[in-house]
């Protein structure tokens, strides 16, 4: 896994990147995302005729003096968006073994997303389920959140197969959740929980981390063993390679469709793609 102090180039590359919300947010705290509220910000939107009961502070007094007509000056507010990054730390993320694993890539993307959210003034936090306990950092806007997140991730080694779905209910006040996973664990339960959060008004971004070796398996014949279910052993040989690639592609396509149908964003990230590119793609992928 990357060392906590090795994210400098990544953070430099992500400077200035924004991660706007998919829709207007409810928050009242001043931020960068379009708010559902209309207030007194300098950003003019429209005039509306004044009606009895409206807040007289919104009256455009200059217009009233010039034209003797009472109009309200409507402005759009900006709000913050609490963001949580949920990272899958199951054993399957430790693939391929050694540098360049899915876990390493997920850590970089997670730190990158937290950095982007933090730069926009959004409270950002981290949740990592492990077999022992769920490690987390509550969403905060204070300085040091990025370093704490990097440190927390550096302390964790992928193992076991802790479910992600229960962790999705952490920090329900956070209205944006990014899920970084290979979705080989409790994919169905996770999708169900994500759907509930979406219905509840949250934004969910599914980031599917896929290893290049999973897309293009090596030509050598191996007895493929699922690290989370050792009893599952299949011969990955010349005669089964094409079938595997077809099955895997179909599953990924189905997964993407189902997440998007549930109202979530879905981004597939390959381990050989630079993390800053992946973060930009995740942020840009959102419909503004």
């Amino acid at each position, binding site marked *: 896994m990357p060392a906590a102090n090795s994210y400098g180039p990544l953070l430099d590359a992500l400077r200035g990147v924004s991660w706007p919300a998919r829709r207007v947010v409810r928050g009242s705290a001043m931020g960068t995302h379009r708010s559902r509220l209309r207030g007194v910000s300098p950003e003019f939107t429209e005039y509306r005729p004044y009606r009895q009961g409206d807040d007289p502070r919104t009256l455009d007094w200059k217009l009233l003096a010039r034209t003797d007509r009472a109009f309200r000056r409507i402005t759009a507010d900006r709000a913050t968006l609490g963001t949580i990054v949920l990272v899958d730390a199951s054993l*399957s993320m430790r*693939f391929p*073994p050694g540098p360049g694993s899915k876990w390493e890539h997920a850590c970089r993307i997670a730190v990158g997303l937290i950095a982007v959210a933090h730069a926009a003034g959004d409270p950002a936090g981290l949740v990592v389920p492990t077999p022992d306990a769920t490690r987390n950092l509550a969403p905060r806007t204070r300085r040091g959140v990025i370093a704490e997140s990097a440190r927390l991730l550096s302390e964790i080694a992928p193992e076991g197969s802790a479910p992600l779905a229960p962790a999705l209910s952490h920090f329900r006040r956070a209205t944006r959740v990014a899920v970084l996973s*290979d979705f*080989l664990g409790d994919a169905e339960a996770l999708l169900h929980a994500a759907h509930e959060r979406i219905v509840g008004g949250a934004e969910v971004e599914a980031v599917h981390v896929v*290893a290049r070796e*999973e897309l293009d*398996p090596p030509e*050598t*014949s*191996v*007895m*493929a*063993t*699922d*690290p*989370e279910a050792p009893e*599952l*052993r*299949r*011969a*990955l*040989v*010349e*005669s*089964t390679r094409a*079938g*595997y690639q077809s*099955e*895997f592609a179909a*599953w990924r396509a189905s997964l993407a469709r189902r997440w998007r149908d549930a109202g979530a964003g879905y981004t597939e990230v390959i381990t050989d793609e630079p993390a800053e590119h992946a973060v930009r793609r995740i942020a840009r992928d959102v419909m503004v």
Partner: protein
Amino acid sequence: MSFAAPFFLAAGALAALAIVALHFLARQRPRAAPFPTARFIPERPARAPSRALQPTDLLLLLLRVMAVLFLGAAFARPAWERPRDGARRVVMVDRSRAVALAADARDSAAAWLRPGDALVLFDSAARVVGDGAADSLRAMMRVAAAGSISGALVAAQQAAAGIAAHADSLELVLVSPLAREEFDAATRDVRGQWPGALRLVRVAAAPAARSAGALTIRGEQSDALRTSGLGARPVTSNVRIVRDAATAGDSAWAADSGGVLVHWPASIPGSDSARALVVGNVVVVAPFARAAVPPGAPMAWWEDGRAAAVERRTRTGCIRDAAIGVPAAGDLVLRESFRRAFEAMIAPCGGAADTRVASDSTLAMLRGGAGLAPARAWTRNGDAVPPLSRWLLVGAAVLLVAEPLVRRRSE
């Protein structure tokens, strides 16, 4: 080293080559490796063909190749070749009653016997002389028994097997008067077992016996054998018929004089009886009282196959025990069949001698074809498993037992 069946050696080598080739091409279980998306791989048999350019499991390959080579070598029947020294002889020397003078046979045999040759002394039985053949030949004495060339030929095969490993070929020499009585129905077949020619060295035969013997019957004066006139028949050897209990003196007489002692009790105890007696080719049908006879070589039988009379050899003669009850009354002893049976009972030890020389055709049969017998006929016995083959088979078995263990570890 030589191989009796080199084809198996070549077959083993080919099988080993095939194993080496298959080791690189065989369907083998791929190595296990973690793969999180293994669930998307179609289910197929766990074994898959893989062509390995670098040899793996060298110990397993070595075990398999060695096992096959050992098996091939074992079935090829390897044998260590010992240095051979030309031809050797198997000398058969007759010492039976057909030989006139034992010294003649000794001298003739000594002329043919060389160091390392095998010696077979025979009369009615044959004996292979291993070490000290010359001494045994010098001490050879003539015996009263009839000779058996068939027995001598069988013993010669045994002697040949003992010396064949040291010779390229074997010569068979027979020193004998070649009397007719020494041939029997088995002689031709037994002779056929010897793959080479037989050299005949004829010595003088004993003269035909004349009526020089005496027949005495010790018993009651009213004994049927005596009163019927059977007791007055001319005989060629001394015969003593004892109709009462035999004494130590009788046995000593039979041993020293070379005569025939017939212990033929006049009264047979018990109620056992028989209806026919067979002696040689003579059948006597009459009610006989009978009893058990002591151990010995049967020479007369009852109709149910039990022995009626037996013969035992002494040093120079023989003792016959007959348990044949001869009725005191009646005309049994006067019948021609009984007379011939009686003559057989008092015949010289080993039967009547016939020392006439065998016919030319018989001698030609005995000589057989030309040439010496190859020693390989005995050293390459098809049924015997060479010791080296046994060890190779044991080695192959050990390797085959170890192979699955090593395979399990490598998997």
